[in-house]
């Protein structure tokens, strides 16, 4: 009886959940609608005549200039080798590189701060934690100038190097590393292992859940990163997916054909992250929960 009442009370929330999905559904269905159907009034909720034209348009003739507007997603960007796949490759490579490198760098720092008796380590940790409240946009202008002076605009280094020092990751890993018994480290030292070896062979394997949680965080954040690439990317070849999407959008607002292509691109951008999230959901929510509870 009380269960039934509970379910009834939750009914509006179930409906809210359904409406949450509407934008996703709208994107997915628009990507498969033929262009005339996109502007039909009232709109069709189920693609009546599904097509892949938004992805690849067989009838498109590249010889006609005006046809730029009626090419599918994979036929655009004639001057970019690989087209849209190139942007996805850029995003993937940058996200993977930043994730691996920033996690290694942060884990080394966390080990030094928790497992070694460093003079001044408390001060260092406090500075790192305090830096978490610096909004990174404050560093936007100077970092742009640094990267420009290094001639890293429009390069992978320009994407990757400035993003490697992640105070939040150090903070999170330190919190987790504290729960690993010091005795393990002492025992390894007595056995004659060097610090680097202890870090890699003893501590890192025990850190796996924390590293997994942080890796998922960083991968998603970097895959979706927009403002920094927007500033340092100058030619289309180096764009990541969000920048490419925004350029598609800027070129032709509300041209229905263009919107179909944009929805196709959005679908292709979102799908990997959603699958990735569903596969690693447990690690992900644990990571969020831990960061929230410690705060």
């Amino acid at each position, binding site marked *: 009886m009380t269960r039934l009442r509970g379910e009834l009370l939750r009914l509006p*929330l179930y409906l809210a*959940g359904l409406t949450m999905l509407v934008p996703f559904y709208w994107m997915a269905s628009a990507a498969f609608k033929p262009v005339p159907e996109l502007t039909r009034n009232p709109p069709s909720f189920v693609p009546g005549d599904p097509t892949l034209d938004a992805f690849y348009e067989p009838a498109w003739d590249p010889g006609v200039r005006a046809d730029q507007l009626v090419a599918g997603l994979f036929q655009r960007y004639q001057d970019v080798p690989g087209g849209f796949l190139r942007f996805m490759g850029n995003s993937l490579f940058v996200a993977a590189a930043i994730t691996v490198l920033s996690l290694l760098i942060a884990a080394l720092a966390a080990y030094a701060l928790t497992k070694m008796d460093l003079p001044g380590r408390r001060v260092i940790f406090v500075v790192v934690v305090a830096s978490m409240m610096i909004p990174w946009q404050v560093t936007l202008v100077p970092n742009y100038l640094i990267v420009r002076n290094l001639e890293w605009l429009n390069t992978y280094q320009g994407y990757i190097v400035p993003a490697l020092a992640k105070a939040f990751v150090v903070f999170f890993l330190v919190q987790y590393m504290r729960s690993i018994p010091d005795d393990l480290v002492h025992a390894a030292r007595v056995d004659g292992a060097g610090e680097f070896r202890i870090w890699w062979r003893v501590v890192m394997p025990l850190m796996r859940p924390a590293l997994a949680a942080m890796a998922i965080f960083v991968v998603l954040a970097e*895959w979706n990163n927009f403002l920094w690439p927007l500033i340092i990317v100058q030619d289309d070849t180096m764009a990541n997916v*969000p920048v490419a999407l925004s350029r598609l959008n800027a070129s032709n607002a509300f041209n229905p054909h263009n*919107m179909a292509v944009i929805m196709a691109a959005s679908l292709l951008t979102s799908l990997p992250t959603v699958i990735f999230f569903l596969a690693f959901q447990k690690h992900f929510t644990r990571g969020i929960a831990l960061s*929230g*509870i410690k705060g």
Partner: protein
Amino acid sequence: MTAVLTEPPLTNGRTASRRRARLRRAVPGYLMLLPFAGLFLGFLIWPLLNALYFAFTDFNGVRPPSWVGTENFRRLWLDDPRFRKALVNSLIYVALAVTLTTAAALTLALAFRGTSWRDRVMRTIFFLPSVTSTIAVMLIWRWIFSGERFGLANTVLSWFGAEPVSWLSTPRWTIPLLVLMAVWGGCGYGMVIFVSGLNAIPEELYEAARLDGAGGWQQFRYVTLPQLRPVTTYVVITGLIGAFQVFEAVYIVFRAVSSVGGVQDGGLMLVPYLYDMGFTKFQLGYASAIAWTLFLIIFVISMIQLRVTRALREL
């Protein structure tokens, strides 16, 4: 005298050599810290200080910066209607978005905190926007709120016989739409944190409350809410900080031909204004003054958080 100086007492010599030994042992530790410390100083602390210096200069990125003292801040805070617009928009947006997102997150957490498959499915659904590409999501919203009759929002209106609204070019609607997007995109994240907070509350507290005759509402009011206070503080503070940094929603959904902030700057906020000044108008000194203003706002919020959590711990 000299003898005393050249031959310090034995105990001191021992501590000195012990300190040296400690430092020697610490060398590998500092080496391990080095990559992080180098990048941290080079791409965070140094740029932060640089931004402060630029804020006191006139700088277009090509000619070397020239010192203008507090002129940028004076103009920004006293004499810039666009900045005032950006600040007021930010404050209204932040207040509405954080309040509504937090309330929605808590409601969802209370409703779907369990381990049944239905709860898990619902949690996943509400969390999906947090993992989807922000730009993709914003493009969908732009499509849904397009002014034409085939825009989904206008279709729904037409079911009720209402005339279509040109949502994106009506300044009055800009902030409400941004808030809607923020709640849609952010409630799942807060929900996850609240769920873990709820599940950490000891069951005995509820049993004790029930023994004292507390009903459902009273249990919520006198057990759940106080126990959740640190988690709530965290959700609110991170929400505030995140909301002050909003950029993509404004840039993608509302950018008009002439302005980053939408029609009549209806959606202009701090980071879009920073971007506009820095990277479309190349007034890097002025942009740095905006950046430091943003930093100061977030610094004050963080200090309040520290105070509040400390005060709560002492209670």
